[in-house]
């Protein structure tokens, strides 16, 4: 079965500014996504904000993410799905698709099988 990653990008300052009620609605939407996707979800994690990242390039170790942007990777899912339409239908359930500062990038995973 083909695999896709859903890369969730957004402005971590805005994620951190969510009120308690907004956070609960946000988490509920993720739970709804996981229920709808069922065993098609192979994995997925929420990441700590980009300023906690450490980047290695050549011999240089630096503080911060690979790309210094306002909107950074905030989390990901790894899914199995038959085709892109199936992934699109599920990804539209994610709350980050609806918020103005965030979005979800879908990348097919290379099949080495």
């Amino acid at each position: 079965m083909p695999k896709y990653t859903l890369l969730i990008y957004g402005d971590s300052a805005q994620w951190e500014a969510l009120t308690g009620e907004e956070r609960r609605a946000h988490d509920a939407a993720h739970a709804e996504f996981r229920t709808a996707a069922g065993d098609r979800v192979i994995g997925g994690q929420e990441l700590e904000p980009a300023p906690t990242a450490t980047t290695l390039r050549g011999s240089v170790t630096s503080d911060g993410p690979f790309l210094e942007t306002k909107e950074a990777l905030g989390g990901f899912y790894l899914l199995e799905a038959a085709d892109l339409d199936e992934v699109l239908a599920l990804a539209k359930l994610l709350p980050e698709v609806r918020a103005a500062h965030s979005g979800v990038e879908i990348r097919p995973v290379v099949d080495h099988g």
Partner: protein
Amino acid sequence: MTAEIVAAVAEAHRRDWAQVLATTARVTRDLDLAEECTQDAYAQALAVWPRDGVPSRPGAWLTRVARNRALDEMRREAAFRRRLPLLVTPPDGPGDDRLRLIFTCCHPALSREAQVALTARLVCGLSTYEVARAFLLPEPTMAARLTRAKKKIATARIPYRTPDPDEMGSRLDTVLEVVHLLYTTGHTAPIGPVLIRADLTASAIHLARTLHLLMPRSAAVAALLALLLVTDARSAARVSASGALVLLPDQDRSRWNHPQIAEGVALLTDSLRREAPTRFAVEAAIAAVHAESPSWERTDWPEIVGLYDVLLRLTGESPVVALNRAVAVGFRDGPQAGLDALAPLTAEPALATYAYLAAARADFLRLLGRRPEAAAAYDEALTLTDNEVERAFLAARRGSL
């Protein structure tokens, strides 16, 4: 080779290309290979039909030849092709392969440029060279764009399928926008020596007819077909015998294709009876008011301004629609009113390089006798226009001052 054979192949190309390719793609599960085999089937027709005669069902003949070639290729390259991702062909309910092909080419996960290029090449059967020329790109650039788009369809697994009912509306809107863009690109070629690219406009109309045939209950499809038919019905009168641009006021209305206007108006009437008007329905209504007016002088400008008001709302206040509305206001209330209506648009960034704004201002200034200002506005329009027929027209207007 006789002219009849060439005409028969050309007719089969126009009528059957999409069907042959769409059916072959189901066998190959590879758009590239399907395209290659379809191309090859038409080459075979040119070689074989002069000897054996035109088959009674050319489409079936071409499909069989393309399919056999595909099976040969797949056997030969089995080991190689197995490593490449294949087109996802889900078991589909009843439906037409041509629709699957169209919706796949116009999938929202593809850029608009890719959608238009794929539709022109795979659905309309224009050659890569022709598609490149239509969109003012070098052929290798267009070839790369097509390859990239086909690769994305295979790798990201965009399925070869018509959309589910709940997303049909928005998916169909994309298809209609692509068909409309193909038509408008041909209607006034952005650059070059001729005004109209008839191969593109004919392809777009044929595609709209196919969509209407396959989705007869869609009011949105009927509205787009109506718009293209009514607009296209006037095309013979848009260019003089010497190739010069003739604007609506000066067109010989007896040269309009009146049966085609009647067909478009009937489609539009039917579409409006069934559903709330889409953007294309209102544009078709505007075209129909012009097409049914006995003369320029008797044009129903209040009706046209009213339709532009509706269109402004439907397009979220599109600056180009606002420009057309301002011009209509000028014809309804006089050149000073038109100039006043255009004034706020000169600050609109989206129109900063739009030649029609400068040309419209120039015309109203000319009618008001403000010659130096009119000349300056014509000069501005000339610097923004690359179509030679339009340039000649603007230069002549400027010269007449």
